[in-house]
């Protein structure tokens, strides 16, 4: 932007060297930028296009145009829904439902717990607050899950929670990044707004529900996105905790198919496309919030 504004003005020849270079530079740089970005986009988009096309192709033709390569590999020229039909006939729909249920529950229950804690950290003064924030939020944010994965598995196992919803759900509820996000947002709300309500005799819970929540739409969207996509994509914990067929989530279903001998590729890719399309559809309209979320959480 800054560079282009200089380039619109055609300088007369015979000026100093520096001024002469400006128009060329202003033209060449965005052009170079576009070229490199297009190269980047090819590397990102072509694999996805191939996978999407292959998922709509009969299984015996999945690799037909990829080798030798032709443009047909990127478009479903032999269009069929066979892969999707077979996939759902074998119970993939249940995995999708399970994952949705899990992700929505995480957003609602985890969102409430994280928002309450974020509010307390952002707005209350109480003894031990900083220590609590450091240990509960910061340490979990930074310290590896590996340390706790095995003992957590054993703990969940000792409760008899293997292959149960609570075993799947509860360990994913507390989310340091989301607490961070809420804290940051709540801390920036003007005190006057809260004081006014408090003077009118509103309780803290009431302040939270009827004053703060309505103005918190951006932070709620961002936090929900983070939690929903995080849970939708999580695979390791569900694989460990709920391997039973009826409880499998999308990622587990796909990951178990990857390792199988004689993989049906178009079905595997169809499953992957379903797993991919949900976060993509969420991220495109709400990208702004998501970016705010990951950039606004105390990183700067």
């Amino acid at each position, binding site marked *: 932007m800054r560079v282009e504004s200089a380039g619109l003005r055609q300088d007369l020849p015979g000026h100093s060297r520096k001024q002469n270079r400006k128009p060329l530079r202003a033209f060449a740089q965005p052009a170079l930028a576009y070229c490199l970005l297009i190269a980047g986009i090819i590397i990102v988009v072509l694999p996805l296009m191939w996978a999407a096309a292959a998922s709509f192709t009969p299984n015996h033709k999945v690799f037909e145009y990829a080798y030798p390569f032709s443009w047909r590999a990127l478009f479903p020229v032999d269009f069929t829904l066979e892969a999707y039909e077979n996939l759902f006939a074998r119970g993939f729909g249940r995995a999708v439902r399970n994952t949705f249920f899990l992700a929505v529950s995480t957003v609602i229950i985890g969102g409430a*717990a994280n928002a309450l804690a974020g509010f307390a950290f952002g707005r209350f003064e109480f003894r031990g607050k900083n220590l609590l924030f450091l240990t509960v939020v910061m340490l979990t944010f930074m310290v590896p899950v590996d340390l706790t994965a095995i003992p957590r598995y*054993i703990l969940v196992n000792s409760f008899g929670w293997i292959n149960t919803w609570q075993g799947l759900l509860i360990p994913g509820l*507390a989310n340091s990044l989301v607490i961070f996000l809420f804290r940051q947002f709540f801390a920036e709300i003007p005190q006057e707004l809260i004081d006014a309500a408090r003077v009118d005799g509103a309780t803290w819970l009431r302040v939270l529900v009827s004053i703060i929540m309505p103005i918190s739409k951006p932070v709620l969207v961002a936090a929900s996105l983070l939690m929903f996509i995080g849970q939708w*994509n999580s695979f390791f914990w569900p694989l460990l905790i709920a391997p039973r067929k009826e409880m499998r989530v999308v990622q587990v279903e796909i990951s178990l198919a990857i390792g199988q001998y004689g993989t049906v590729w178009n079905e595997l890719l169809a499953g992957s496309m379903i797993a991919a399309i949900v976060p993509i559809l969420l991220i495109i309209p709400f990208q702004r919030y998501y970016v705010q979320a990951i950039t606004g959480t105390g990183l700067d």
Partner: protein
Amino acid sequence: MAVLTQKKPTTILEKLNDETWRRKFLRNVIIPWIFIAPLLLLHIYVVTIPAVQGIYMSMTDWKGVGQNANFVGLDNYRELFFEDETFGKALGNNIIWMIFFLTVPFILALFAATMLSQIKRGGMVYRSILFIPYVLASVVTITIWKNLLNPQRGVGAALAEMGIQGFDIAYLGRPETALMSIAFIDNWHFWGFLMILFLAAMQSIPPVLYDAAKIDGANRWDEFRHVTLPGIRPVVLFMFMMVAIWSFLAFDYIFLSTQGGPGGASEVIATLLYKNAFFRFEAGYGAAMGVVISIFAGFIIMIFVTLRRRGWDI
């Protein structure tokens, strides 16, 4: 409201009878803790108890099943560092992984963010597209790239067919290329995240600074070095720390693509830990690896904090 002249309550009974004190107590102690309680309970259950148990387990020879766990002190750690060659190899791979992720995605992201910040038209579209891989699940990314890197039907095979030989190798199946190929796939998914962070930081730099640099006769490189880079430095350094920590946790991409193979060529600590805990019935030994990873993470955080104290302004 209490009368102004009333003296401060001292004993517990007086305190409980004093309304001002009760209100204060409710407001400064009870309510905050009610707000924190759900999170705290979750945290104790998900992190605190397992962490303490993990540290204890790492000092036993527990198999992961049954009741007999004997306390063995630091034996597991001695074995890890002085006897177990696979652990040394895995640790080395983690360090290679860290070096890769502290350079490649950072350079790509800085570069792309700089380019994107110059573009007026369609910037949002480019940004969205480049960011898409980041929201894809590891399972999805691996499924796609396992095909593309396949020597018989992937990109290499297509190139060979066109006459460009030498790329149709089993990237994931050869010891020399396995780790770097997985790093490439993981990076395909990851770098957009850094790019978005850097771009947001760049856009928050006041344009005045660029104008000033231009008046001083700065070229693009000077601008980048003296305006852009200092402006985004906090984010870059913070991400350096996070990526360094995450490098020791690298798991899902490796587990899904090679499981650490061939022959341990792409083994990292986390995959080794998983195998020990769930396949080899060496839970105590696996837990010791978890503790080691945590110590590394703590060490990285300490370096970061120390540098900050020394006035590095990070």
